[in-house]
Each structure stands twice: as C-alpha cells, then as structure tokens.
C-alpha cells in the first residue's frame, strides 16, 4: 500500500514538474507547480511527517503559490514565445544532464548501509518534537533565518517605495509614513 502510494505520487510530482517546464502559459506552469507541492506533501505524509505535510500545503501551495498566481494575473502575462535557446544551454545542456543522471544512478545503485537509510519513525515527526528541536537545538539558525526574511521584507518595501525624482513629489502623506 505504501509503495503504491509512493510511486503514484512520486510519478505525479515528476509529471507535474515536467509539465511545468513544458507548458507555455504561465498560469498552467503555476498550477503544475502547485501539483508538485501537493504531491510532495503526500510523500511527507507517507513518511509520517504530518506537521511538515500540513505546513507544506499551507505555506507553499496555499500562500506562496497564491501570490505567484496573483502576480501572473495582475500582469496579465500571456503565452511565452519559444526562443531558440542560448548557446550555453545548447552546448552544455546535454553533458550536464548526463552528469546528473550518472550521479543519481550511482547514488541509487550504490549498496547502502542500513544506518544511512531513512526509516519510518526514526526521526522527529510529531509537532511537539519538531517544536523542541527548532527552539532548542536549532534556535540560532532559526533566528538567523527569520532575521534574513525580515531583511528581505524591509528591502522589498524600500525598493517598492523608491521614487523616480523626475516623477515629482510623490504621493501625499508619504513623508510621515516614510
């Protein structure tokens, strides 16, 4: 049962990822990406990581992708035109792909020691355990990440508010809020 579900959703994830690149319409690509996120969430569920699965859906599929779709709709982006592709991609693409396939093949075919394999239940999955790890052992990385995100938000706001001096005085009431 587990294996059936794993292969089903792994195949859906890969198919959606291929479709994401294949499609020429940005909305169709965005929806394929949502499909990838959704099937990843199911794979997390299969590993027993319910919290991660829920967070994956809430944050990636439910918030970030909604913003993507929102921006695509707001700009009313149409179909992309196929370009012949850059010379770099033409000459380096196939060799790089081959390297990647060989690397992955090696990793899969290599005899694994049992200790390296991820087993169901061998790692923290419950919400309580994740909370303890996050705010105990990994507190510093966690806080550093949040400061990084805060800096990104402030930077985005600063970029959005920057006025072109040629355009004039800007909106009324800007001074007191700036």
């Amino acid at each position: 049962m587990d294996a059936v579900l794993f292969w089903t959703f792994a195949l859906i994830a890969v198919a959606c990822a291929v479709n994401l690149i294949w499609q020429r319409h940005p909305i169709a690509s965005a929806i394929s990406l949502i499909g990838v996120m959704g099937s990843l969430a199911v794979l997390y569920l299969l590993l027993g990581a319910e919290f991660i699965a829920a967070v994956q859906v809430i944050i990636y599929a439910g918030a970030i992708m909604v913003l993507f779709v929102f921006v695509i709709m707001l700009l009313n982006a149409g179909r992309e035109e196929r370009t012949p592709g850059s010379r770099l991609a033409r000459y380096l693409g196939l060799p790089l792909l081959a390297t990647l396939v060989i690397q992955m093949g090696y990793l899969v075919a290599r005899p694994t020691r049992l200790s390296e394999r991820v087993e169901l239940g061998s790692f923290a999955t419950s919400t309580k355990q994740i909370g303890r790890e996050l705010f105990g052992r990994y507190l510093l990385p966690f806080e550093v990440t949040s400061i990084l995100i805060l800096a990104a938000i402030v930077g985005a706001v600063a970029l959005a508010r920057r006025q072109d001096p040629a355009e004039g005085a800007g909106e009324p009431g800007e001074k007191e809020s700036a």
Partner: protein
Amino acid sequence: MPFLLLALVKAGVLMALLLLTLLYIQWVERKVIARIQRRWGPHRVGPHGLLQPLADTLKLLTKEDLVPPHAHKFLFLLAPFLAVSLALLSIAVIPFGEEIEVFGQRTPLQLTDLNIGPLFILAVTSLGVYGITLGGWASNNKYSLFGALRSAAQMISYELSLSLGVVGALLLSGSLSLREIVDAQAGFSFGFLPRWNVFQGPWPQWAGFLVYLTAAFAETNRAPFDLPEAETELVAGFHTEYSSMKFAMFFMAEYANMITVACLATVLFLGGWHPPLPESWGVQFAPALAGAAVAALLWYHSSGAAPGKQRWSMQAGAAAAALGGAAFLWPGTRAVFSPLFWFAAKSGFLLFFYIWVRATLPRFRYDQLMNFGWKVLFPAGMANALATGLMVALFG
C-alpha cells in the same frame, strides 16, 4: 472490515446531513434577512416556502450551462469542482460528539481524528482560494478577473489573522487533535463558568475568538467582506460568467465554508459539545425545554394564522418539536443526543450571527478592507498570541 463499513456509513450520514444543511441554510438566510427587512421572504413554494430550496435546485439543474468563448476551458470547468470539493472536505475532521455505541461498535462522532486537525482545516481553506481565483481568471472577463484578484489578496491577508486567532486556543489546550481540544474544555471553574477557551484562564481567548470570527467572515467571502463579488462594482465578481450547476457549486462552497468555520469556532473556543452550565443546575433538561418552547411558540402562532396550509403546517411543526423535546426526557436518548444538541445550538447560533451581520452591515471599501486586515486585525491577533504564550508559560 467492520471498520471500513462503519467509516463508509459515517461518511454517508455526515454527507447527507451536510448537504441537507447546505440546502436549508439558504432558506433560513432568506427568511431571516427578510424578517430583518420586514418582508416575508420565500413563502409560495410549499408551506412557509419550505420547498423553495428544492425548486431552486431544480431550476439550476435545468438551466443552460454556458462556457463563454475565449475562456480557458479546462480551468473554467475545474474551478467550481475545486471550490466545492475542498469546501466539503474539511468537515471530515470536526468532532461532533462523544463516543457512541452503534450495533456493538464503539465509534466517535467524527470521521477521522487527525493529529493535526486545525492545521488540516487551515491547509484545505488556504487551497480553497484557487477555486475562486482560477474561476475568475479563466472566465476571460474583466469583472471576473477583478473579483479573482481581490479574493486572492483578501484571503492571503486574512488567513494570517485566522491562524493567529486559532493559535491562542491551541496554546491553552496544548494539543493539535480537535477531540483532545474539546476534552480539555470540559468542566466548570467556580462551579458555574464553563472551562471553554473563551473563558478559560490563564488568558481567556475572547480576543482570539473575535479575531478568528472577523477573519472567518473574510475567508468565506461573506458580507461585510464580500468584495470578490461586490455587485455594485463587479456585476457578480468571480462568478459573473458561471451559470447552472457550476454557479450552484460556488454557492454551495460558500455555505459549506461557513459551516466549517462555525463548527471550528465551536470546537476551538466554545467548548464543542459540552453544555454551558453544570448538571446540578438542571442543564440536562434544557433540550427538552427548548423543544417545549418551540412547540408552544408554533402552536400560539398557528392559532392566529388563517386556516389552511399555514395553520396545518405550524401545528405539525409544533407536534414535531414537542415530540423531539420529549425524547430528551428519556436518559438513553439524552446521553447520545445532548452533545449533538449543544454542538448544533452553538454552531447554529454562529451561523445565525453570520446571517445577522450580512443583513446589518454595509460592505467595506477595498482599501479599508486591506488596512483593517493588516493594521488592526493582524496586530491584534499577534498581540493575543504573544500574551497567551506568555501567560501559559508563566501560569499554565
């Protein structure tokens, strides 16, 4: 095998009840709003217009199903299915009552008890926006597109406040299983005050409850936050181009979402199926009394009504209410149905509150909506979550 059979039966019963409620909550809404505006509301089809929902369904089923030219056909068809299936999905984790015994099988009155119940509901709700957004975009109509954009922006903004409102209740209960959250709210402090999360120390969640309730109005696109379908500006917003059953699906999704948020509010803040007063105060007779009161009221009105259809149906209603109330006098029925009664009463009141607000408040302007969401509701939710965390850490 009994497990599978039981699960199927429970899913079937729950689905039937949910669809029946969806059908009739529209009748209730039209009646209540009509009464608030001193009108009659639907009263031609059947006694008191009770068959109006069926007539509406028939009408919608037989209407022509249009797909506008230049619409994105696949997404146009997908969107209403997405909206309604996601809306119906989240009811699966709501616990309605304690364990009961059916044909020798003990089973909780809940489809499935996830370890992450509230997160599951938040995840499903956060996906629900795609139904509206994609439907509006795929219609290839400027009004639909504006409705879609508004709904995407609005739902992202208010989802945060909704989650922050939920966080306080979760902190107090110390669990992510909805059943355990309800169990944590059993009992009374000072002998009479129920230990519901809105009253429970060390930090009563009334502020969190208000934040949740307000954000829930926006999440379900209900007035006064129904900007995605503001008919004075956008014709009908995201569902302008939809007709027939596909329009009905958006309609159903809205009401199903309303029911879900009302049930979740009952579970998280109002103590689920636990009664509001201790048994020593005679609260176990409240359902019987309520039945008797409804029966008396209906009988009184039937005596004033003109003879004919209306009088006959009111008397039948009075008899049914009296019988239902009398059934609660028998301890066997009481044990099973009292929790359901209290759950239905609390969720029903919240649903009535939704309708009441719709009939009372005018619609927000779009910039007011965004300012309110980000500058009032979000900080309030954040402050409440921080205060709850602090109090639970100090005194919990």
